[in-house]
């Protein structure tokens, strides 16, 4: 695993690389080389202790009153300051295996990049991959080895989709010990209300919830014409469709679905981000992180 990707690595070729580790590192390096500050700050308000100021610390946390009293520089430490837990829940169901640029591949790389970013700033990424049989999880953790394990999980061999994403969502929230960030990466096709139920519960628990809604361009535009025997990637059902005649209705229903997901996220207070699987990885990530930086 090459942790030291060259600074001038061509991002447009990242799409062709199968090495998720490499991509993840490269994307993050690229992000950080742009002097982007991580927007994933600890946001816990629980004061833990003081420590001496080290050059480079964020002056926001400087306790000026204490300096006034002592003439010494101390920074406040919060409970979650350096150990922000970021749990990534990755949908590996059948519908994610669709797209000229496969959504699941994109989601894995995206997850890896996100994990690398978290690890770079000493946060604790974790991951749960749902849909390939039993849930494959790695709890949140820190350290280089942990990150390696996480990336290994992501880049390891994938098995065919076996279970529905929604079926395993219910138990997910119960494994989270501390409040943190929960990132859902899914196309949401397999869920109706389950995902909102989960997001709502996580929010009540105090987690920050972000939904990255991964979609294929073909799903967005439906560029088909003629008669087809369409097969559902999840269920395997086949349906005769005249694509030309059906396109309008499909797009109407699909857009309706997108609106429902977005408004559902707004209602539960979760962040919603729609990403097409043929978008450049770094751009998708950078756009979201910049947005987050502005918002926070």
């Amino acid at each position, binding site marked *: 695993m090459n942790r030291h990707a060259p600074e001038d690595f061509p991002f447009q070729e990242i799409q062709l690389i199968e090495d998720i580790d490499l991509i993840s590192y490269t994307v993050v390096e690229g992000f950080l080389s742009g002097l982007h500050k991580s927007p994933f700050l600890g946001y816990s308000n629980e004061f833990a202790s003081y420590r001496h100021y080290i050059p480079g610390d964020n002056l926001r946390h400087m306790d000026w009153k204490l300096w006034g009293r002592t003439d010494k520089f101390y920074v406040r430490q919060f409970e979650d300051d350096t150990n922000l837990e970021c749990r990534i829940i990755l949908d590996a169901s059948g519908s994610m295996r*669709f797209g000229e640029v496969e959504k699941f591949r994109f989601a894995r790389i995206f997850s890896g990049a996100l994990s690398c970013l978290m690890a770079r700033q000493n946060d604790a990424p974790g991951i749960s991959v749902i849909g390939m049989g039993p849930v494959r999880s790695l709890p949140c953790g820190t350290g280089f080895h942990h990150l390696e394990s996480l990336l290994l999980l992501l880049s390891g061999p994938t098995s065919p989709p076996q279970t529905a994403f929604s079926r395993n969502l219910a138990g997910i929230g119960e494994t989270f010990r501390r409040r943190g960030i929960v990132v859902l990466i899914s196309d949401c096709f397999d869920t109706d209300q389950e995902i909102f139920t989960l997001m709502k519960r996580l929010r009540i628990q105090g987690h920050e919830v972000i939904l990255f809604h991964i979609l294929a361009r073909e799903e967005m535009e439906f560029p*088909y014409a003629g008669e087809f025997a369409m*097969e559902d990637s999840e269920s395997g059902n086949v349906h005769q*469709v005249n694509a030309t005649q*059906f396109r309008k209705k499909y797009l109407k229903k699909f857009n309706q679905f997108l609106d429902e997901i977005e408004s559902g996220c707004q209602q539960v207070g979760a962040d919603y981000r729609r990403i097409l699987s043929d978008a450049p990885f770094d751009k998708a990530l950078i756009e979201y992180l910049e947005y987050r930086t502005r918002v926070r």
Partner: protein
Amino acid sequence: MNFLFLNSIFLAGLAVLAVPVVLHFFYRGRRRKLKFSTLRFFMREDPQEMRRRKVRHLLLMAIRMLLMALIVLAFTRPFANNSNSNSNEMAVNSVIVIDASASMGSGLVNGAWKEGLSLLGKRIGSLKSGSSAALIRCGSPAEIVAHWDSPAHIVKALENLEPGYGSAPIASGLESALNLINQRSASANGQANTSEIHLFSDFQDQALREISRIIMPANIQLYFHPMDQSAVGNVSINAQFDDKSLPPKARAEIKNNSEKSVATSINFTIDGKTQKSLAVELEGRDRQWFDFPIDAGQVGWHTFTARLDIEDGVDFDNAVHGSFRIPAPIRIMCVSRTITKPNYDDPLFYLHLAINSNPDDSSGVVSPFIMEFASEAILVERLKNNLAHGIDLIIFPGHKGAIPGMSQLLVKYMESGGSMIFFAGPDIWASRQNEYLGDVLPAQFGNNRTADGYRIKATHISYYDREHPVFKLFKENDSGDLGHPVFTGWNELILPPDAIIPARFDNGIPLLVYRNSGLGKSAIFNTSVDDEWSDWPKRRTFLPVIQELALFMCDRAGEVSDWSYHVDEMVALASADPAGNQPQVYTSPDNKLIEKSANSDGFVNWQFGQPGFHTVRLGGDESAVVAVNTAPSESEWNFSKPDSLENLIARNDQSLENSDKSKTRQSGKLEIWKWLLAAGILLLVAEMLLSNRFAT
């Protein structure tokens, strides 16, 4: 009623109906498979809706197949042949028009004529009882062979019909048929009969020339019975007699009216004796011309024939005949002291050259003139002794005096048909001529004038009557300009009221003046016969004017020498006995004799019905030989299809009185392709509406 097709070959297009069925079964199990992420956005159809959709698709396929079938059938142009229109309800008035033109003669050779008449006979014979029929033979003119009679009688009359040798305008046959039907309808006594016309013809293009003037009532059924000539080849020959050339010639044109090339030969005979034989090869639709000189030599009637040695579809145009008459020469007496042939410096040289323009007797060509020279004394002697009846024309080439008493003799001469030309040159002794010849001259002489260059200028011919027989030939191009000759002298003339002046100088003085005298004429040519008063004798216009004047004075101008006519052409021949006591006798090529008397104008009208040489005794001992040929237009081997004639014959909405108005079909055929196309258009609209509705 049975259905037939005009273009049955298009029925093969119905095979295209199998294409949508094949495609339907081919693609039914072959829908492309497409793996999609989820089908949650696709509406689930209930089985009933799926069944309904299947029915709709089958219905659409059926509509499309029917649409294609209608279009294919429209191309085949089906029609309902109302062949039994006359067999069911009512009696029929049926007129049969038979094209008996020369081209139909090919049917006699290959049996198509008999076969066509036989089919017609069966058709007429099967008419409902109470029906009537009439028979018209289409010729020039159309002839009613049999008026309204029972069908059986008409069938019998059909058996004896044969084509002729003339042309047959179809329009006149149809007109006669319409007249018969109108008469019949007018006297129908309230009975409603269907009227129909059956036309049996090869529909040669030249016979259809005036057919567009026929307006047929909408309720008369018109049936065309074509005699097919497409497999009949024809080579034809026709000829023109050219008497303007020297020697006269016959120009023959041979035409190959078929597509194949042919090889044949032409035999040319004059008066029955072979003169020339030529081998000829012609490509398809090719023509060639040949000239045959006619060296007949003798005065009188002559015949020529150009015959092709070929066997083709028709033989009426394999030979062309011509006849012509070489009239006796005009006998001219030139009053002159010189009685021998003048030499070139003699004043009479130019006159002699003009009158005897064929000095070389070895040419074999008969000159129209014979001129002798005689003194006045000899002339007077002959006039006195009544020996001048053999002289057609006396020419006075200009002389000073006149013998007393000559005037009365000349008057008597002209009364019996003789004519006189007086050349008035500088030698004229005006007062003497006026005194002694005043009774015969067409004008009195005044002073003569000579141009002196300043007071009296030279003059030219400025006016001449181009319609006058003497000057008619100058209407043609490149015939010469009469305005060129220069005249330096002339005589003033005192003109009587009945003088005729066909030409003048530009000073107003007549060049030529004449008047009728008895049965003859006398003329003054107001110039010298030589080149003393003009340079005209040296110009090319001098000779033809003198010759034409001589012919005119002897009433020989425009004399027909070519006696060739076409079959059925009306020919009026002057009777030698206008009072009608002695009829003209006609002998046909097959030696039939017919006698006919002259009409009130003194002419006998003949119409020759067959090609060949016909003899007509004009009167006395003279018999004319008339050559008759079939009109060249009958050899034009171009034919029209009957269905194209439907558009040429106009129809009006007026029905015949007392005719059955309920049956208004044209030609007995009901073409239904228009209805098929209309149904196709309606189906197309239905298909568009349904396919759009099924898509929603």
